[in-house]
């Protein structure tokens, strides 16, 4: 079980959180201008690194707020930026 440092509530068990996948995937600023290939990128393509990456979590059983976290996907070490 991960011990996740919620920026608002402090370190809590992983079971209090839901996962949100890769961080920093912005909604397209002008969706009408997007072609099919661009939509693939927004909807389906994500980084999948073995190592440090930024991801989203929401503290559903706590403050219910979303935040970003850096975690190493191989070692699960949290907090060291890539």
């Amino acid at each position, binding site marked *: 079980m991960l011990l996740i440092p919620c920026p608002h509530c402090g370190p809590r068990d992983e079971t209090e959180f839901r*996962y949100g996948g890769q961080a920093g995937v912005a909604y397209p600023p002008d969706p009408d201008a997007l072609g099919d290939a661009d939509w*693939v990128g927004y909807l*389906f393509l994500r980084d999948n690194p073995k190592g440090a990456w930024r991801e989203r979590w929401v503290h559903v059983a706590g403050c219910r707020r979303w935040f970003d976290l850096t975690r190493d996907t191989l070692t699960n070490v949290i907090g060291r930026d890539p």
Partner: protein
Amino acid sequence: MPCDGSGALTDARATLRAVSGPSSRLPDHPDRLWRHPDPKPAYDVVIIGGGGHGLAAAYYLAKRHGITDVAVVERGWLAGGNMARNTAIIRSNYLWDESAAIYEHALKLWETLADELEYDLLLSQRGVLNLAHSLGDVREGQRRVHANRLNGIDADWLTPDDVARLCPIVNVSPDVRYPILGATYQARGGIAKHDHVAWGYARAASDLGVDLIEGAEVQAIDVDGGRVTGVRTSRGRIAAGKVAIVAAGHASIVAAMAGLRLPIQSHPLQALVSELLDPVHPVVMMSNAVHVYVSQAHKGELVLGAGIDPYNGYGQRGGFHVIEHQMAAALELFPIFARAHVLRTWGGIVDVSPDASPIVSKTPVGGLYLDCGWGTGGFKATPASGWVLAHTVANDEPHELNRAFALERFETGALIDEHGAAAVAH
């Protein structure tokens, strides 16, 4: 009584030999089943990944397409990834026509595979049940039974009493948290011995001239003018006319070496076994809603699989709370498991696609092919995955069975949503 006890020891050994008689008929130790060549400087085809799917593809390339100048390069040892970590369940009861076709092709191949490979795979078609615990589950399950029948796949809908008749140890009482309201049943489903499958394919491929190169980690893929030219490995560069990436949980990492970004996320998936028990559990029981699937292996251990851990991970281990959740579900379904001890737990890394369906496809890079995205259910597909990948590589065109499983579906929108039939929570 002589103090050296040698007479007793001889007797004991004779008894041991007698007791272990059947095991002496089991296949040879895998060390002696295939050649261990050094890599040649060039091959017609290099397959990246020596798991079940890669080995099957190599075998069918040689056997069905006459392409024997093939190397399978494997970072670790053969079949040491998900092929060694799955729960060995085989079934073809998927919802959509495209999935039903490819998984049923696999099941038909399973039924004759031991003869073809001349290797006992311990295939046991003991029947697979997918339990329904809610009205939604019942509707989804019945819909899938009907869809299976329309596709010529054996499928039945079971009442709770039917479930109890097939598997007397399951708790079908209505007063539990997740009562059993019914189940889908595929009588031809079952389990096989996963190691034997890999060894059988490896031996047959090696005998046909395929080089199986273990301990060779691919570090780069060479692309020249939009066409793949070879791979660079920890055991040297290997030129190749064609390259297939069959790297399961590491598909994204390997594909990135050729500049490809995949709609794949890698997650830990855990399973566990109990100590050896007398035969108590005659079928394969799966429950989508409570995230557990259980069978009893040939040796006697209960084999239980869990849902995936929610986060991306490559650590080949997961959180213990996932195991706890899985065990709680298993104990409610099977109260007699309460005194069974867990022998060991482990995790593999599964390559999850957005629609819970695989990608077996050509790529934008010439001569580079993909076989990935099997996620939580790749073992059952092993023969068909190898079959269609071999066809795709040999002809530079997809087989009829994997045409729909191309990368392009994420752009056209022709997704094949099998989250229901995949049976493992993602």
